[in-house]
C-alpha cells in the first residue's frame, strides 16, 4: 500500500456489474493528488462507470474506492463533476447556475453572487449573467458548467468527455481554458475521453482501458510533455507524435476488439 496518503483517488480491485452486465472488472487505479490523469478507451468501455464510482454516485459491486486514504461511502464530498450531457439547471440564469453550489453549501446570497460574478468574468461570459442556458451556445453552456463545478473549489474534478459535443475549434479553446484554470489552482483531475489526442495534450498520465464488457486497465503511460503547454501547437511537436504512436498502437487493438464485439 505505497503512496496511499498521496493518492486523491484509489480504486482497489473494483468490479461493477449492472444486473448481468459487467461494466468493469478488477480495476486498480491510483490518481496522485494534484495530478491530471486522462482515461481513454473505446466507446462502451465503462469510462463513465469509473467516474461515477469515483463520485460515489454508484457503489462498486466488488472492491473499494478510497478518497484521500478514506474509503468512500455515499457521495464523494471532495469531488466536483462535469458531465458529458447538459446538466445545468435550465430554470436558473447563468448567475444562478454558477452560484448554485455555493448557495447549497450555505454561503450567503450576496457573497455567492459576488463570487459567481468573478467566475462569469473568468470564463468569459461577461454580459450573460442574466441569460438562461437555453439562450447560450454549446460552448458557452460548457463554460457555465466549468465555472459551476470550479467555484466550490473541490479537491478533485471528475470530467466525463466534457467537450465531446463541441466543434473542433471551440473544443481547443475550452481545453486551453481548462489548463489555465488548472495551472492557477491545481486540483486532482480525472478526465475521461475517447480522444487520445485530447488525453495526451492535457494529462500527466494516460490510462488505457480495454474494450468492454468487463473492462480493465490495459496500461498506464506517463506523459512527459513540458508545461505550460500550448495546445494550439502541441499536436505537431515530435514528442507528442512519438507518444501518440506509442499509445495508439495499444489503444488501436482495443478499439478493433470493440468493433468485433459490436458486430
Amino acid at each position, binding site marked *: 500500500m505505497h503512496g496511499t496518503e498521496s493518492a486523491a483517488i484509489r480504486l482497489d480491485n473494483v468490479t461493477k456489474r449492472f444486473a448481468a452486465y459487467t461494466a468493469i472488472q478488477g480495476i486498480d487505479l491510483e490518481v496522485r493528488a494534484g495530478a491530471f490523469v486522462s482515461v481513454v478507451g473505446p466507446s462502451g468501455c465503462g469510462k463513465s462507470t469509473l467516474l461515477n464510482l469515483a*463520485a460515489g*454516485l454508484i457503489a462498486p459491486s466488488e472492491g473499494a474506492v478510497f478518497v484521500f486514504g478514506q474509503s468512500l461511502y455515499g*457521495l464523494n*464530498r471532495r*469531488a*466536483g*463533476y462535469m*458531465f458529458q*450531457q*447538459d*446538466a*445545468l*439547471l*435550465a*430554470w*436558473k*440564469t447563468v448567475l444562478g447556475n454558477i452560484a*448554485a*453550489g455555493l448557495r*447549497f*453549501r450555505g454561503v450567503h446570497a450576496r457573497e455567492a453572487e459576488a463570487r459567481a460574478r468573478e467566475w462569469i468574468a473568468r470564463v468569459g461570459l461577461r454580459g450573460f449573467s442574466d441569460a*438562461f*442556458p*437555453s*439562450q447560450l451556445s454549446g460552448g458557452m453552456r460548457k463554460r457555465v458548467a466549468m465555472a*459551476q*463545478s470550479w467555484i*466550490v473549489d473541490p479537491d478533485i474534478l471528475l470530467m466525463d468527455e466534457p467537450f465531446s459535443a463541441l466543434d473542433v475549434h471551440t473544443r481547443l479553446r475550452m481545453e486551453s481554458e481548462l489548463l489555465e484554470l488548472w495551472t492557477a489552482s491545481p486540483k486532482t483531475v480525472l478526465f475521461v475521453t475517447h480522444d487520445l489526442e485530447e488525453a495526451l495534450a492535457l494529462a500527466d498520465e494516460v490510462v488505457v482501458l480495454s474494450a468492454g464488457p468487463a473492462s480493465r486497465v490495459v496500461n498506464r503511460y506517463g506523459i512527459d510533455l513540458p508545461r505550460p503547454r500550448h495546445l494550439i501547437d502541441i499536436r505537431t511537436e515530435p514528442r507528442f507524435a512519438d507518444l501518440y504512436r506509442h499509445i495508439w498502437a495499444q489503444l488501436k487493438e482495443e478499439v478493433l476488439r470493440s468493433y468485433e464485439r459490436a458486430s
Partner: protein
Amino acid sequence: MNERASRRLPIAVWQALLGAALLGSWQALVNAGKLDKFFFSRPSDVAARIVEWLKTGFIWPHLAVTLEEAALAFTIGAASGVVCGFGLARAPRLGALVDPYIRLLNALPRVVLAPIFLLWFGLGIWSKIALGVTVVFFIVFFNTHQGVRDVDPVVVNNARMLGASEWQLVRHVLIPSALTWVFSSLHISIGFAMIAVVVGEYLGSARGVGYLISQAEGVFDTTGVFAGMAVLSAVVLLVGWGVNRLERWLLRWKA
C-alpha cells in the same frame, strides 16, 4: 418584417370576413324566414341583449360569481394537485397503493357528481367550486406527478455533486421541473375550471352565468341563451389570453 406584416394582415382580415359572413348569413336566414326566430334568435337581437346587460349592469354580479367560483376552484384544485402529485411521486410505494383508486376517480364523468355536491354543499358557490376542484385537481396532479418523475437524472446528479441536500434538491430541481409541467397545463386547467363551475351553476344555483343561461332556457328565451354563451366565450378567451401571457413569463427560460 415587412414581408411578415403583409402576410399577417390578410389572415386577420379574412378571419373577420369569415365571422361577418357567418353572422350575416344567420341574420339573413332568420330575416328571410328560413330559420325560425323563436328557435334561433338573431345576431342583432343577441348583440342588443348583451349591450342591454352591460348598460344596466345586470351581467356583472353573475359574471363576478362565476369568476370567483372558477378562481377558487382553480386555486384549491391546483394546490392540492401539486401537493399530492409531488408527495406520491416522492413516496412511490404509497403512490403504487393509491394509483388504481386515483384512476378510478378520474374515470368518473364529473357531471354526475354535481347533484351529490348540491346535496353536500348547498345551492351556493361551494357546490360549484367542489365540482371545479375535481376537474382541476386531476389535471394538475397528473402533470406534477409526471414532472417529478421526468426530471433528468443527470441534472439531479449534478445538483447532488454541487452539494445539494435532499430538501435543496426538492426546492431547486424537483419543484421547478414539476412546475414546468403544471404551468404548461395552466390554460387547460383554468379553462376546465370555468366549464365545471358553469355546469354546476347550470344544474342548480341562484346566480352566475350558468344560472343565466339555464333561466333563459327555462322560458324559451333563445336570445338570452345565445347572449349568455357569447359572454362566457368572450370571458374564457380573455382569461386564456392572460394565462398565456403569464405562462410565457413563467417559462421564459425555455427556448
